């Protein structure tokens, strides 16, 4: 660890992983209710469990972003964090708010806008924590060296915090409510979070491959430009059927098609930099997660997003399991895997030891990624059948659902693998084993040409 105050990130990553555990266990229970609908139905209904599943996800991803910022900004700005006390105060507010929210959901106190169900005091707490963060990290950057990575990271974090204001705006008119709700939801995950993702990925690639900073940063600006050029008007793909004007069908279809580009560029960027890079970095797990997040984000957010974004398709697929399939792979690829990449990279440094339990970490990558991919496939199949039976033929919802039960069983199975992978990841981060599970071979730089017969 080059700067002492980077240690703050350790506490953020621990809390993030704790909530990650809660999130996937919540998902597992929700998946089981699809298989066995009477499970917990009187004590803990599905809507409460889903709230915990989605809210825990959002908060742990944000904690990961904050932790990543506290970890990488000192290295980029070449100075200590402005105030460690404020950083811990921010974390305490967020953790108390999150636990308070989960507690109040369990006793039935919650809002009713999807993903924004936090009670008002928690929402205000999040706002205060975000303001503390922005002040703290901006003071650090302003006093130190400014790089493209900190520029883009800060811009993303400032904008996502500003957009949080719309979490407080809830018009009585349902269609307006929905329109402003997307200002938080879409402009987070398909605009500002992409800036954060691209910045963190650029930092990781810079460290792991040793490619020239100038090259990395140029790519970074091109990636985030394509993200915002497509993502801002791409919001239109949520405006097709909620009472907004018809022109959104064309604007949304065209611009959200372009939303594939930043994800394709991030994937290309990661692989090209690894190809060009001369560094043989010892932390292979962090490299796997970095390439993994870029790749799975391209498929989950890019390909699976495009699959149902054109308005002619979306007219039939809107609000079916196809959306659920896309949502799971996109969040996993773009944001979960990204956080696990920075955690995999930072933890050995924060704990002052060499990369450890890398093999277990890499096993967890394949368990989670394999499980998520399988879940996405079965939900996509379920969604296609649902779309046809319900939207084309006109069969009633529950009749259609009954015929999808085999897919929900397979989804539960794949979810179990994801949970197993998540727990293994947390174990590989927290528990220190004396030796690797598999001893690594000697470093062996690749020759320029392959030798026949070898």
């Amino acid at each position, binding site marked *: 660890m080059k700067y002492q105050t980077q240690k703050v990130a350790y506490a953020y990553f621990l809390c993030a992983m704790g909530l990650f555990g809660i999130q996937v266990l919540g998902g597992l229970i929700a998946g089981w209710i699809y298989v066995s609908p009477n499970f917990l139905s009187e004590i803990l209904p599905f809507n409460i469990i*889903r709230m915990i599943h989605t809210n825990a996800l959002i908060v742990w991803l944000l904690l990961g972003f904050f932790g990543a910022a506290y970890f990488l900004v000192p290295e980029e700005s070449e100075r200590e964090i402005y105030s460690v006390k404020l950083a811990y105060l921010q974390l305490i507010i967020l953790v108390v708010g999150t636990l308070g929210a989960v507690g109040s959901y369990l006793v039935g106190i919650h809002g009713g806008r*999807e993903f924004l169900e936090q009670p008002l005091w928690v929402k205000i707490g999040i706002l205060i924590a975000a303001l503390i963060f922005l002040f703290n990290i901006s003071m650090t950057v302003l006093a130190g060296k400014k790089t493209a990575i900190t520029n883009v990271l800060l811009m993303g974090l400032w904008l996502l915090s500003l957009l949080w204001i719309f979490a407080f705006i809830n018009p009585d008119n349902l269609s307006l409510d929905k329109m402003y709700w997307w200002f938080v939801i879409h402009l987070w995950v398909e605009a500002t979070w992409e800036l954060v993702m691209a910045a963190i990925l650029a930092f990781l690639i810079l460290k792991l491959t040793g490619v020239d900073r100038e090259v990395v940063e140029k790519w970074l*600006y091109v990636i985030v430009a394509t993200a*915002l050029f497509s993502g801002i008007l791409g919001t239109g793909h949520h405006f097709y059927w909620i009472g907004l004007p018809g022109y959104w069908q064309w604007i949304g279809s065209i611009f959200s098609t372009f939303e594939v580009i930043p994800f394709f560029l991030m994937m290309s960027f990661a692989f090209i930099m690894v190809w060009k890079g001369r560094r043989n970095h010892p932390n292979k797990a962090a490299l796997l997660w970095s390439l993994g997040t870029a790749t799975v984000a391209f498929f989950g957010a890019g390909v699976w997003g495009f699959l149902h974004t054109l308005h002619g398709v979306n007219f039939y697929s809107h609000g*079916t399991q196809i959306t659920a399939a896309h949502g799971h792979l996109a969040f996993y690829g773009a944001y979960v895997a990204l956080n696990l990449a920075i955690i995999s990279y930072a933890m050995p440094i924060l704990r002052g030891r060499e990369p450890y339990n890398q093999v277990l970490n890499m096993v967890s990558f394949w368990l989670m990624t394999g499980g998520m991919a399988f879940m996405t496939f079965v939900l996509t199949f379920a969604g296609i059948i649902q779309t046809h039976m319900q939207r084309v033929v006109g069969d009633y*919802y*529950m009749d259609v659902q009954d015929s999808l039960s085999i897919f929900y069983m397979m989804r539960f199975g794949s979810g179990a693998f994801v949970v197993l992978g998540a727990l293994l990841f947390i174990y590989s981060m927290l528990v220190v084993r004396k030796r690797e599970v598999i001893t690594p071979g000697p470093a062996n730089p690749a020759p320029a040409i392959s030798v026949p017969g070898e």
Partner: protein
Amino acid sequence: MAEILTKSRARNIFYAGSLFFVVIFVVLTVHSHYYVVTKSTAGMPLTDEVVLGKHVWERHSCINCHTLHGEGAYFAPELGNVMTRWGVQEDPESAAEVLGIWMESQPSGVDGRRQMPRFVLTPEEVRGLSEFLRWADQTDTQGWPPNDAG
């Protein structure tokens, strides 16, 4: 990438282009807001009953099982057109009556069937909720959903 695209050029394109798209987005949003208020939702007044119903809808987090205009959880039926499906969209009295009976019959307790919790509502709240769902149903959603199955 070509040498003509330097880092500072890429940065300037990013800032200027983003600002350009933000401006377009804001203009379209203002128009959309106006369109919602004056056209797509104007078929039925936004009464106190409808607002009460929206609060009931939110307090019980209906959105985390159901979809409304296709948005929400995919665990339970679409409700944006439920009043049409039940054939009571044009009849507020029957709408409230049918909804009240439905709410009171939950949970069904049928084995192997998804369970809707029992939400204890006052008659005013039931009436508000049914008005809210009727209000949502009359919204011009560009022809969505494709059929009454929702």
